[in-house]
């Protein structure tokens, strides 16, 4: 239980650093989506199912959609 928690937090940190490093914006957004999903999982672990559900639907679903739409209308790679 606590091991899983530690593992998830480490995953989150790694994902956040990868988002920061990735030059390709689309990949960065996809990594951010997986970050959000892992965050939802962690919140489920912390006994907050409502929040986990909302984060999975809004944070991972809708936010990603909006990002992808905007990236498709602008430029895909970071300089």
């Amino acid at each position: 239980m606590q091991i899983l928690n530690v593992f998830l937090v480490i995953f989150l940190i790694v994902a956040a650093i990868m988002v920061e490093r990735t030059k390709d914006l689309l990949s960065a957004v996809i990594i951010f989506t997986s970050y959000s999903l892992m965050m939802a999982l962690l919140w489920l672990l912390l006994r907050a199912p409502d929040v986990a559900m909302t984060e999975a639907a809004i944070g991972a679903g809708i936010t990603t959609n909006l990002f992808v739409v905007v990236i498709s209308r602008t430029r895909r790679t970071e300089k």
Partner: protein
Amino acid sequence: MDDLFVRITTRMILPFIQIYGLYVIIHGHLSPGGAFSGGSIFAASIVLYTLAYGLKPGQKRLPHHISSKIETGGILFFILIGLIGVALGYTFLTNQEAGFPMGEIGRVLSAGLIPVVTFALGLKVMSTVVTLFHTMMEEE
């Protein structure tokens, strides 16, 4: 995206997503979920439809003139519900004391104003998220 396979799959799973979204909204006070998660799940179905069939048919599903009415209506409804409490001599947004029917614990139709407000807000969230998506998709 003119992929037949994507379209067929979308058509097949669309009703399930919508029913799930409605379930989450309606059972908001009994199980995890509520207006915001349910509304965005429901919105996801229309977003998916737009992605599979294109912007124009997607906008037909929820045209702007309807969505703007839903958004206005959601908040006005919330305000009116709150003012009932004031009218009956209590404060804004009073639930039990203002005499909303509380029902039996654990039933869908219980808890006074909670399911009513949740339903209105769920619709509002759905329409807002879809409108956000459609507005972003539009080309000038």
